[in-house]
């Protein structure tokens, strides 16, 4: 890797402005078929008070300008289709294109959630089959496909737990959360009306079971565990943890973000987990799309089934499927209509592609992570030495000696053609480098990644400035986040200069 690589700045692609800046009155990109009924008099129909002439400032451009604009923008993005994302806990695996194709079929994309159920049997069969598959994978008794993302799944899970405890006469007050947990966990617990009590990890990064024993009082509704933990390490004592909780009438919630280490190998239901969510946009390959949409189905044991959110899929006589909108003990509705159906279609397509062979994906994911760990041990500090599953967490302790931290290393990795790994998380590892390759990476790609990381470690020792001022080859250099937060400019305004604040 040399300094000869320069970033492109003069190519047209790199100077694309905002769409509003190319706008000119009278240009159009889309024409409608002509109106085939008498034209309404808008002022008359709506009344003067409600009338609007047109949206002020809306863009006016031609079709080719739209295509060029967004195509150029797209070339500024890194993506799985271009290369590896070693992002820990994100499971950035390949997004199969057949999933996109089937989600767009006429008769799948076109269906209205309120159309008669007898005209929706195809959609309902898709939901039913996905439910069955997820139950088989998780080892649970019941599932809801309603939540739109992992965080919403977590909320649904906690609301189920609350409803269960309320039915038993006492909602309880607290939820225990490990200090290694993802930020959505405590944020969600608060929304569910619980106090958060943090539980510290022990020296190997696992849940401290002895401490747990003391912390589980009748005030505790549940423990939220991530397994494998955010360190990529399997919580070996999870059955014991489940028992401690159950003995005190509390429940075990599992954040399923790391299912990519478990699918086909073991089942959370068998381990004593009472309720968990899955991230379909992680383990089940639905695309990240720059930040969603995802889906966060929640699987649960029988004891929580009565509280499931509506609507609930049921099978009637003759095999006809229906969605029931009312259930006496349901926690209610968490989202309108019936979940992120298009995402559910994609996840089912993924499962069908693998079938019973889905275990191979898990094995390859764990193989890749361990292969990378083996080749970077000694080059980077490894704070927790227990076996890694699908991800490994290093720290920047060795590089810190030259003033180079995990953020710098991550930015320099960009110059080598990779997206950074997850920096600064989990919080229990200061200066963390969390690496999850997934099963989608070939050996060549893993080797390239290893080479890049070793090269950067060398640079950190011999030429730290190069690393600290990275990236050097991107379209923009490091951006001023402080300025962006002090004087937020959150929209374009006509006649707004580059540095003018929004207010």
């Amino acid at each position: 890797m040399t300094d000869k690589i320069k970033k492109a700045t003069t190519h047209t692609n790199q100077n694309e402005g905002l769409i509003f800046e190319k706008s000119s009155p009278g240009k159009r990109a889309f024409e409608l078929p002509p109106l085939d009924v008498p034209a309404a008099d808008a002022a008359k129909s709506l009344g003067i008070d409600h009338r609007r002439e047109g949206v002020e400032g809306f863009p006016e451009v031609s079709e080719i300008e739209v295509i060029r604009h967004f195509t150029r923008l797209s070339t500024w993005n890194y993506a799985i289709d271009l290369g590896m994302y070693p992002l820990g806990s994100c499971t950035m695996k390949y997004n199969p294109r057949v999933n996109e194709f089937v989600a767009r079929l006429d008769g799948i994309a076109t269906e209205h959630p309120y159309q008669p159920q007898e005209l929706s049997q195809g959609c309902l069969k898709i939901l039913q089959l996905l439910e069955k598959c997820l139950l088989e994978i998780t080892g649970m008794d019941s599932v809801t496909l309603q939540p739109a993302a992992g965080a919403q799944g977590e909320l649904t899970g906690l609301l189920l737990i609350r409803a269960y405890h309320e039915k038993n006469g006492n909602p309880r007050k607290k939820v225990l959360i490990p200090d290694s947990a993802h930020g959505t966990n405590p944020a969600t617990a608060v929304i569910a009306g619980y106090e958060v009590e943090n539980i510290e990890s022990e020296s190997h990064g696992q849940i401290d079971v002895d401490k747990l024993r003391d912390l589980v009082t009748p005030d505790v509704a549940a423990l939220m565990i991530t397994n494998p933990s955010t360190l990529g390490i399997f919580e070996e004592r999870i059955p014991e943890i489940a028992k401690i909780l159950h003995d005190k009438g509390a429940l075990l919630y599992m954040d399923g973000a790391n299912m990519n280490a478990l699918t086909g190998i073991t089942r959370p239901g068998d381990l004593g987990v009472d309720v968990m969510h899955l991230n379909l946009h992680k383990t089940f390959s639905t695309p990240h799309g720059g930040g969603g949409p995802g889906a966060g189905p929640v699987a649960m044991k029988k004891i929580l089934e009565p509280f499931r959110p509506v609507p609930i899929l049921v099978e009637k006589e003759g095999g006809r499927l229906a969605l029931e909108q009312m259930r006496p003990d349901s926690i209610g509705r968490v989202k309108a209509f019936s979940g992120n159906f298009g995402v559910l279609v994609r996840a089912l397509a993924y499962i069908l592609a693998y079938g019973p062979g889905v275990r191979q994906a898990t094995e390859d994911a764990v193989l890749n992570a361990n292969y990378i760990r083996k080749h970077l041990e000694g080059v980077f500090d490894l704070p927790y030495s227990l076996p890694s599953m699908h991800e490994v967490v290093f720290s920047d302790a060795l590089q810190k000696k030259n003033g180079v931290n995990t953020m710098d290393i991550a930015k320099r990795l960009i110059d080598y053609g990779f997206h950074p790994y997850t920096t600064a998380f989990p919080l229990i590892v200061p200066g963390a480098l969390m690496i999850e390759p997934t099963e989608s990476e070939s050996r060549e790609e893993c080797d390239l990644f290893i080479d890049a990381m070793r090269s950067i470690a060398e640079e950190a020792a011999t030429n730290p400035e190069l690393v600290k001022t990275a990236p050097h080859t991107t379209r923009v250099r490091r951006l001023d986040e402080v300025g962006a937060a002090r004087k937020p400019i959150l929209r374009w305004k006509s006649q707004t200069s580059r540095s003018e604040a929004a207010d």
Partner: protein
Amino acid sequence: MRYLPKSPAERQDMLAAIGAKSIDELFSSIPERYRLREALHLPGPLSETEIIDFFKARAAENSGGYTSFLGAGVYNHLRSVVTDAIIQRGEFLTSYTPYQAEITQGTLQAIFEFQTLMCQLTGQEVANASMYDGSTATTEAVLMAERLTGRSRILVARSVHPEYRDVLKTYAKNSGLHVEEIGYGANGTLDQKALQSALKDDVAAVVVQSPNFFGVIETLAPLANAAHASGALLVTAITEGVSLGVMRPPAEADIVAMEAQSFGLAPSYGGPFAGVVASRDKFVRQMPGRLAGQTTDSEGRRGFVLTLATREQHIRREKATSNICTNQALCALAATVHLTLLGKEGLREMAHQNLSKAQFALAELEKIPGVRRAFDAPFFNEFTVELPRSVKIVNAYLLREKIIGPFVLGTAYPELTKHALVCVTETTARAEIERFSAALRRALEQPV
């Protein structure tokens, strides 16, 4: 397996490099008795062709060949093929959340443009990068009002979408919010007298929808004045965003919660869609969801970053404004592309076509003996009619004519026993409106 880029030999080599004899060794931390001995019982494996055949077979069991007059929160609108051509590009489809700004400027600039379009549409000053959908956006807007006012009583119009109200109730139960419903008047708009008597200085927000669930357009100014006089905020939900192409935006609202499905997103049996929360600049720090902000790099180039992240869960944890992490970015991108394609004139024309077709449809239906318009107030592309007999029975007849009839309001409003919510958009051909009208006439002539 075609998604796994390894040959058996490579797996062996890599195991050897690790020093493991078999892949099972790498799972030794899982106690023996919990490790599965046989493969999961899952359907498949299917080839690409078989997967497509499976879903085509499911598609054939749905509503192909029927004309629909359903709206009620999910709308059929024209969608350009250009939108898919853009959002199917791998650089957008398979890209991660833009935390690393230098290599995600495409996503970030597109979000910035989305935020701008949403502000222009709603008449608000700042908009976020998307929430899950309109129903959760409305709930988040209410929670935002709670944070801003420090109060916990919420007044919601009954004419807000029933499922939106359900979702709000689910979230409210656990946040100490008290939600009360305010009824509607004879013309279908919010009962202002009832609102006035319910407003005290403990109300955080008044929540209305416009056009409301009956299709009726609300006049917001008096509602905003009443709310503000009590120190409450006005939250306005919008389920049909195309209405903003020809209708004044809710500038009087303090917070707007809009569903963006009408902007280029397929109905897709209810999701994925995209919700938006838009509000005033002064409230931005209490806003949920991601925000993309403009800034410069060290060489003075304009760029974009996620900003004001201290509101969000990954920093604020328990004190976050919301627990949302993954949102609906690709859907928001689709809406951005769609609205850019339509442009100012296209959106106005689309909205005008909706208005015209709905007027035409109402006029046709009013010619049928026994059919009467229920609410005498302006409407956009949905309106409520009262029939002389049960809507369910009428719809069963229409179904045999391959027509999916209007939404049965009685299912959500028990007092509206014979009322139907008819939706007509620019996609409903005149011939189909006339066919529907004729079929409805025949349905009402059937012996009881």
